[in-house]
């Protein structure tokens, strides 16, 4: 929308408030508090249960509001599980390599699309925005990736998703808001397009770059569907696909059996969830203040 450069406005500075307003304020605080509880309780339940004694976890009913007989036994099982370890490694590879490629291509694409005086740019923009509304669908997508001989390779999780159109448009909007005189004067000073992009435009739009980097990294960390349809060998599986096997496909089968491992199975599941989720939750608070910039709808209106 047209909210560029609008400073944050404090709505009212009046001290006197009516009774009704005060009651509303209290109701509001309570409602927001309840929402926070509803969001936090299921999450904390998992965390506390993962640190609890497996026997207690089996007996316990209801939510865990604190760890019971704290122990790290579940995490020891998780660390010993070879699938989780390779899954972790695969996911880290995909996140690092995939996100790097994402960022380079998105920056290049955004830079070109933000050069309005080049005549082909309008056509390129139209061509790219169209893909947001109409897509070939899962099966043709699979067949294209398959015919390029990418299936069964980790690259099938990187190249086919090398650019996200929404992120590209967000990035383009950020670059278009940089005054034209800056890249132009760089070009007059003899810098080429590559140099202008990486030493003038990129530093000026680093807040947006930070946000889309987070988006891409979260996407790679959390995605599982493409891995499920493209990969064949378990040694290539990313973490989320391993998680799916442990957490969801096992869900109905894991009844019965009374050895130590079976008894700990629930606790192990909780520990697995924590191990797989914590890394991504750790980085986002640092980028939170940039979010508003990143999700501007105005960006979507090509």
């Amino acid at each position, binding site marked *: 929308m047209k909210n560029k450069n609008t400073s*944050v406005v404090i709505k009212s500075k009046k001290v006197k408030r009516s009774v009704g307003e005060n009651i509303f304020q209290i109701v509001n605080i309570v409602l927001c508090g309840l929402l926070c509880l509803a969001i936090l309780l299921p*999450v904390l339940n998992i965390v506390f249960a993962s640190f609890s004694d497996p026997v207690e976890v089996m007996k316990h*009913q209801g939510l865990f509001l604190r760890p019971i007989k704290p122990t790290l036994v579940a995490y020891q099982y998780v660390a010993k599980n070879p699938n989780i370890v390779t899954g972790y490694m695969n996911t880290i590879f995909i996140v690092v390599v995939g996100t790097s490629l994402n960022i380079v291509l998105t920056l290049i694409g955004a830079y070109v699309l933000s050069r309005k005086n080049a005549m082909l740019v309008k056509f390129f923009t139209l061509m790219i925005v169209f*893909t947001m509304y109409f897509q070939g669908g899962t099966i043709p997508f699979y067949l294209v990736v398959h015919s390029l001989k990418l299936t069964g390779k980790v690259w099938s999780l990187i190249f086919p998703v090398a650019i996200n159109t929404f992120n590209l448009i967000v990035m383009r909007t950020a670059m278009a808001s940089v005054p034209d005189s800056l890249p132009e004067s760089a070009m007059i000073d003899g810098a080429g397009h590559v140099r202008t992009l990486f030493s003038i435009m990129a530093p000026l739009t680093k807040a947006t770059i930070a946000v889309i980097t987070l988006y891409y990294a979260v996407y790679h960390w959390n995605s599982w569907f493409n891995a499920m349809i493209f990969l064949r060998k378990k040694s290539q599986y990313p973490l989320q696909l391993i998680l799916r096997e442990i957490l*969801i496909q096992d869900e109905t089968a894991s009844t019965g059996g009374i050895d130590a491992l079976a008894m700990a199975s629930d606790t192990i599941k909780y520990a697995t969830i924590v191990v797989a989720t914590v890394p991504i939750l750790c980085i986002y608070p640092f980028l939170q203040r940039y979010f508003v910039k990143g*999700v501007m709808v105005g960006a979507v209106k090509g």
Partner: protein
Amino acid sequence: MKRKGQATVSDVTVPTVSRGYLWKKDWQRNKTLYALFIPVLVFYIVFQYGPMMGLIISFKEYKPSKGFFKSPWVGLKNFKDFFTNPFFKRVLLNTIKISVTNLIFSFPMPIILALLISELRSKAYSRIVQTISYIPHFISIVVIVSIMMDLTSRDGAIVSFLSHFGFKKVTMLNEPKYFLPLYVISGIWQNIGWNSIIYLSALLAIDAELYEAAKIDGAGKFRQLTSVTLPCLLPTIVVMLILQVGKSFNVGYEKILLMYNPLTYEVADVISTYVYREGLLNMNWSYSTAVGLFNSVVSFALVWATNKISQKVSGSGLW
């Protein structure tokens, strides 16, 4: 229309130059820029327009052994097969039911939350509420579904809590009647905070003078909401609604694939999960592509129609 406009402008200002000359000049000036764009272009041609070309196989009887070009044409056979298939009714109705329910219950939630957060007087508290409500957005769908399974299993926390009120102890995800509520509620849980960001930023952009003027005219809080806040939010709401409608026919199939099981197929199976099973599991390539094409066309039509309606009604839209 635009092309015409451009031509007249150039005719008036520099009457002697032709379009061909302009293109040549443009090419000379920008060829390095276009060269830079090649990797992006290749990505879009291969991985976006490639699958669109691949849609052609929905009019063929595609056999991997014969390849894309040599497979025989069959006209509309695959579409007829789909429309006469007993599954057609089931997946179409489920898709509509799930997406409409989701739209009605999930769509307004982030707007309400944004209004509540913006009314909080304590900035610190509002920041805490925001930070907490964003958390689920970063949790993977695999984990969300497994948390939900855990909480709603026979011995799960939610079921044992509800059993105090005479609720039967069952694994909720094996019961068709609980599928839709669980799908919608978990969706709200995951997205309410994140989707409220966009409305919060729109709320911040509203000119404070409008509120001042409304107050001077004697408007109370509620009147300010209906006469200032909501009209100012409307364009954002409309854009989000159109985008949501566009997505709605592709209902979160990744989540449904994780959530459903043969016991709940009858209520949970949607077009996109059907495409997945027919195409990637049963290898009916052409048939499943035809079903997928039907899905894409319907969602594109929905976006187009919503956009048209909103332009008529509110004067704002996507394009």
